[in-house]
């Protein structure tokens, strides 16, 4: 009896924790949608029609659903990347660059490896290899920033931004040069198509949603497990919350910082690899459209919790995907969506506004996402 009671109260506690954690993001979304509606009204649009369009565009058909999932996939990977770094007390602004590195290397393995070897590889080897190499290179790219932080004290915010410039410009150089698609009709900075054996199959015939989406959900679960159930996760969280106590407890703080950054980069690299192997079958300059930056917003909205990130990624994906239907129905510009997203983020970041509007009392501790300069 006692244990039954305990398990009931534990379930209750977990539900309570979930509703506590999601309350502010939920109200932030609600407020942003209402405010967005008012703005739509004042620029001469019909808010209800606009939101109907948004919902139809995102969820109104199997094709719409499939496209929302396609959008959500890189958002989940990149959101997890930023969130994992947050948990370790690091602010990874470099997901965009790590994503590009992952995409370039996956594309390279995808189109060039059979040529180098002189024979075709089976999918079971070629596809995982392409993904793995992209992922590891993303990790290496971010790991450099982790090493700089651990051994020189160089701040990761500055260094990830710098590494973004290096990654994006080097990618541009490669895609215009030695990696350029040499087919006679091509004028775009892009790689050749990757081999069939490096392509991820679609889940359903005729829809673009691919197995990378399922992989994203699995990886989200894996990251939750890693952070909360393993000794490595304990080390990452301890270093993130209190590096002095981590050192006292015998945790190798420098190693953990490098590892956290590398894992974060691997997740961002995966975002790029999966886009190449699952969707575009090549890497093309400018394909990312700021996934790496939206990822920061997604990590914040999802409160750095893997489940929160999956939900936030879906929200962002639905808004991006539904925008064109909204534009078709109301002739409102797609940019309106960016504005609503910005409002959501504003309300999540400045949650005092939401607490004031809805009269919610703050609960004791503040969530510290990352430490300040020189932390």
């Amino acid at each position, binding site marked *: 009896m006692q244990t039954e009671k305990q398990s009931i109260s534990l379930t209750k506690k977990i539900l309570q924790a979930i509703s506590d954690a999601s309350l502010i993001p939920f109200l932030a979304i609600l407020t942003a949608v209402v405010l967005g509606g008012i703005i739509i009204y004042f620029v001469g649009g019909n808010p209800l029609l606009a939101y109907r369009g948004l919902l139809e565009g995102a969820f109104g058909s199997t094709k719409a659903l499939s496209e929302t999932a396609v959008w959500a996939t890189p958002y989940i990977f990149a959101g997890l990347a930023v969130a994992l770094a947050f948990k370790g007390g690091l602010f990874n602004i470099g997901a965009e660059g790590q994503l590009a590195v992952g995409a370039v290397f996956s594309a390279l393995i995808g189109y060039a490896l059979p040529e180098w070897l002189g024979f075709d590889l089976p999918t079971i080897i070629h596809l995982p290899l392409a993904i793995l190499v992209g992922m590891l290179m993303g990790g290496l790219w971010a790991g450099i920033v982790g090493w700089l932080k651990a051994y020189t004290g160089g701040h990761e915010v500055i260094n990830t931004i710098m590494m973004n410039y290096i990654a994006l410009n080097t990618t541009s150089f490669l895609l215009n040069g030695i990696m350029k698609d040499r087919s006679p009709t091509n004028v775009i900075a892009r790689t050749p198509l990757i081999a069939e054996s490096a392509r991820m199959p679609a889940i359903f015939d005729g829809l673009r949603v691919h197995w990378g989406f399922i992989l994203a959900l699995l990886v989200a679960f894996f990251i939750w497990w890693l952070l909360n159930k393993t000794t490595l*996760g*304990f080390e990452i969280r301890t270093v993130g919350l*209190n590096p002095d106590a981590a050192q*006292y*407890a015998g945790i190798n703080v420098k190693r953990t910082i490098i590892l956290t950054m590398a894992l974060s980069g691997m997740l961002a690299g995966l975002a790029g690899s999966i886009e190449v192997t699952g969707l575009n079958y090549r890497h093309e300059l400018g394909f990312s459209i700021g996934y790496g930056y939206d990822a920061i917003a997604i990590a914040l909205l999802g409160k750095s919790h893997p489940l929160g990130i999956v939900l936030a990624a879906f929200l962002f994906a639905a808004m991006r995907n539904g925008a064109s239907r909204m534009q078709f129905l109301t002739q409102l510009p797609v940019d309106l969506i960016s504005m609503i997203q910005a409002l959501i983020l504003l309300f999540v970041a400045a949650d005092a506004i939401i607490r004031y509007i809805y009269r919610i009392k703050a609960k004791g*501790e503040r969530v510290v996402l990352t430490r300040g300069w020189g932390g």
Partner: protein
Amino acid sequence: MSEPKIVLEAKGVTKQFPGVLANDNVDFDLRKGEIHALLGENGAGKSTLMNLIYGLHHPDKGEIFVNGKHIAIHSPNDSIAAGIGMVHQHFMLIPVFTVAENVMLGDETTKRGSLDRVAVAAKINKISKQYGLDVDANALVGPLPVGIQQRVEIVKTLYRNAEIVILDEPTAVLTPQEAEDLFRIMRDLTARGVSIIFITHKLKEVLAVADRITVMRAGRVINTVKPSETDSAQLANMMVGRQVILTVNKKDHEAAEEILKVEGLSVRDQRDLETVHNVSFTVRGGEVLGIAGVQGNGQTELSEALTGLRSPTSGKVTIGGKDLTGKPPRIITEAGLAHIPEDRQRHGLVLSYTVADNMALCDYYQIPFSVRGVIQPKALDENSRKLISAYDVRTPSPFVNAGKLSGGNQQKVIVARELSRGNVKLVVANQPTRGLDVGSIEYIHSEIIKMRDRGVAVLLISAELDEIMALSDRIAVMYRGQIVAIVDSKKTTREQLGLWMAGAHVEPA
């Protein structure tokens, strides 16, 4: 002669926090020109009562009167306007600002749009002279000694015309001499009509300085007494609710083989200054070696070098015959070190982790807490329940965040974790009872002596001479990074130790 008028009164104040009734129908009054000590253990509700008066919290029930008038205090601005000033235990000063800039912060005096430093400095110097505070308005705050920084905080309240000053654990950060100076200042202030609420848990200070003493326990006022009508033992009983042993009972020690051996150790601090010079000593199993000294004489760096938090520049450290010089903390811990760190919130705990997680903070990676890299929540849970009951940690459950516990219970979490480890050969306890209440101090002292009696070597570093003298078998005195004397604790006196601590050259008797 009539009683002096009452300047501040709290009537029936009640404040409920989740899970704790922090103040239960509390009545408290302060008369003009008196020092009213508020005595109680950590978590007794002293700070809550003061936060209610100062406007940092709002009472659920009850009223507060200033000079007989009921006032509603919604924020510190209201209480400051009512003439109440508070000096917090942790100072609210900006080190790179001057005294004058710190004092005017939030209440800046300007002349044609720019800060009028001259007028402010003049006012500060006037206040300083009037109350014998001896504070220079133009000095930078950062380099000032702690005792003077505290006076800057007092000046801040007087500058805002406070007639009621709340001092929250003011002596916790002071040397005995600085504390004496503070008491003199407190008497000067009351002689000029300022009324003082003095929050503390130190019995001697209360008896020395207070006009009236109110004792709180578990959110309630137990009694209000005059120092002339009471003594330490009675006050301690009221605080703790039971008989308290104020001295430590210990058997004669039977020192065994050498456990810790330190040879010619030198250590540099983060500014790259050598703060420990060529220090050598040994600690045997079954004895407590106390390191006495005024804070800041290299004790912090010495303990960091012994526990692996800092690499020494030269010298050798062996524990149980194993050379562990400059090894990382994990290696030293695995060799048998239990470390009660100087700053429990910075090094000893992750405040947003649960008690259960904190109790496995150093052993989380070992069986039974982890199996093949996966944390075993059940093992963490069982371990914490065992330690919570064995070490009398007062917590609603093992899943409460350590940050929610009182200071004494936070320290007990650390003590339980460190001393319960199976292989402990050496305990390094740095300021193990700083800022704690009588009950917790008594408990932690008895645990340290228990370890000694089990044959463990104990290195005790403390700035409290009473603590050093009560627990140590031998005492080493540290001054400017050197050990200037090592003596048998039975063959020395407070006075002699005090002289060594002050740097006087006295040959050991």
